[in-house]
């Protein structure tokens, strides 16, 4: 170790805080200038820590499961009544669906319709919250030889969740539809009007840019649009809700506050490029 005189050491100690504050500004500039380097550092750290998070996740999941169980037991009676009523309704729908399916099959036979191939998907577990204070994102733990790519679409068991923006060796980050930087082209299923769903960091994204004359109505179903080639058409997204202030919002089908396993779909779409080409979808590997 280098021996320094006491005054010199004191001077160095007094200087270290201002120097480091200057270095913090330097890091800020670096983060702005070289987004790719920062992204690599982040994913390397996430890769290293995702096994630890996967282990920590177990007791957390157990506690959450227990809480959910207790809640379910508490609401058993009302839940049962609701389910009975819903079951009645769904029986009627099932009859309608069977009739429509038969009719559909008949019409397809007559038209020699070429069906879309069923998209391939893989599942991954949510291990960490990768959003921080001002963003909404989750980190997925994936095996060492995963085939997760940027631009893949993530759905939970109910509907659209977000898309993969960063990929590491053992982990991947999914930007949620509620994040402030999320812009999803959608279609209102009733009127076939196109719109953009804009994240606000709140629980309900806002709808913008619908065509004049076809305002979204409360309760309209919202599905994804194939506009711009970023998403396949028809993925279930949510329902339109008009807020008290008159704002048009989307209540998502997906339960973003309790994500545990996500399905990642590879639709092989090239998509639009985000402002920095960091989250550019990679081309699908040839098979």
């Amino acid at each position, binding site marked *: 170790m280098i021996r320094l005189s006491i005054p010199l050491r004191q001077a160095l100690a007094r200087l270290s805080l201002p120097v*480091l504050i200057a270095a*913090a500004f330097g890091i800020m500039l670096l*983060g702005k200038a070289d987004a790719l380097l920062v992204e690599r550092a982040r994913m390397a750290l996430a890769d290293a820590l995702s096994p*630890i*998070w996967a282990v920590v996740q177990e007791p957390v999941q157990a506690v959450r499961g227990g809480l959910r169980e207790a809640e379910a037991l508490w609401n058993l009676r009302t839940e049962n009544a609701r389910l009975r009523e819903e079951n009645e309704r769904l029986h009627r729908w099932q009859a309608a669906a069977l009739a429509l399916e038969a009719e559909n099959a008949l019409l397809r036979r007559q038209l020699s319709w070429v069906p879309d191939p069923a998209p391939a998907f893989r599942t991954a577990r949510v291990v*960490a919250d990768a959003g921080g204070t001002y963003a909404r994102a989750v980190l997925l733990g994936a095996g060492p030889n995963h085939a997760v790519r940027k631009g893949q679409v993530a759905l939970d068991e109910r509907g659209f969740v977000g898309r993969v923006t960063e990929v590491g060796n053992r982990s991947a980050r999914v930007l949620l539809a509620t994040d402030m930087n999320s812009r999803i082209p959608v279609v209102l299923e009733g009127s076939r009007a196109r719109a953009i769903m804009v994240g606000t*960091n709140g629980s309900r994204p806002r709808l913008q840019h619908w065509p004049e004359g076809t305002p979204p109505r409360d309760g309209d179903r919202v599905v994804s649009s194939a506009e711009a080639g970023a998403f396949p058409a028809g993925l279930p997204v949510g329902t339109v809700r008009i807020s008290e202030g008159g704002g048009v919002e989307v209540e998502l089908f997906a339960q973003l*506050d309790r994500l545990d396993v996500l399905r990642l779909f590879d639709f092989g779409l090239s998509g639009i490029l985000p402002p920095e080409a960091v989250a550019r979808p990679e081309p699908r590997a040839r098979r």
Partner: protein
Amino acid sequence: MARKGRPQPPMGTLRRLDAAARAAFPALGIALLLIAAVVPVGAPGLVAALALPPVFFWSVFRPAAMSPPVVFGLGLLQDLLTFAPLGVGVLTLLLVHGVALRMRLWLVRQGFTVVWLCFCAVAAVASAFGFVLTGLLDWHMPSRVPALLQAGLAAGAYPALGWTLGRIHMAMTRAEEGA
């Protein structure tokens, strides 16, 4: 400090390890806390809120273990873990550390409640600072709710964290004086 009648034992490997563990505990403890806080439990902004109380506490009560480079490293870890704009957490924590150092001679003589109230003010300013900085770096204003939530979480977490850390700090001081 050696007491009368007990000769100071020589600096053996075990004692050296003991001292090293004591010196490293604050930084390592915060790092582990941050890593554990990322596990999703449904409270966004938890990581940034949990970093503030221990950094403030150790800067006031044990500044030797919480030097500026250590704070810098913890801030960097926070920024990388939360995917926040790089540098925001670093700068916020460094400024909190600087303020705590300025106030420490007065703060160490105060009771728990006064320290907590001072921390609440510091946390509010730090959250507002992080909010403005994030807005400047991303070039659009984020909503104010997460910043308020972060300040509230930090202020609410301080009593529990501060009490635990205070116990640990007293145990460490006793061990140092008894050795």
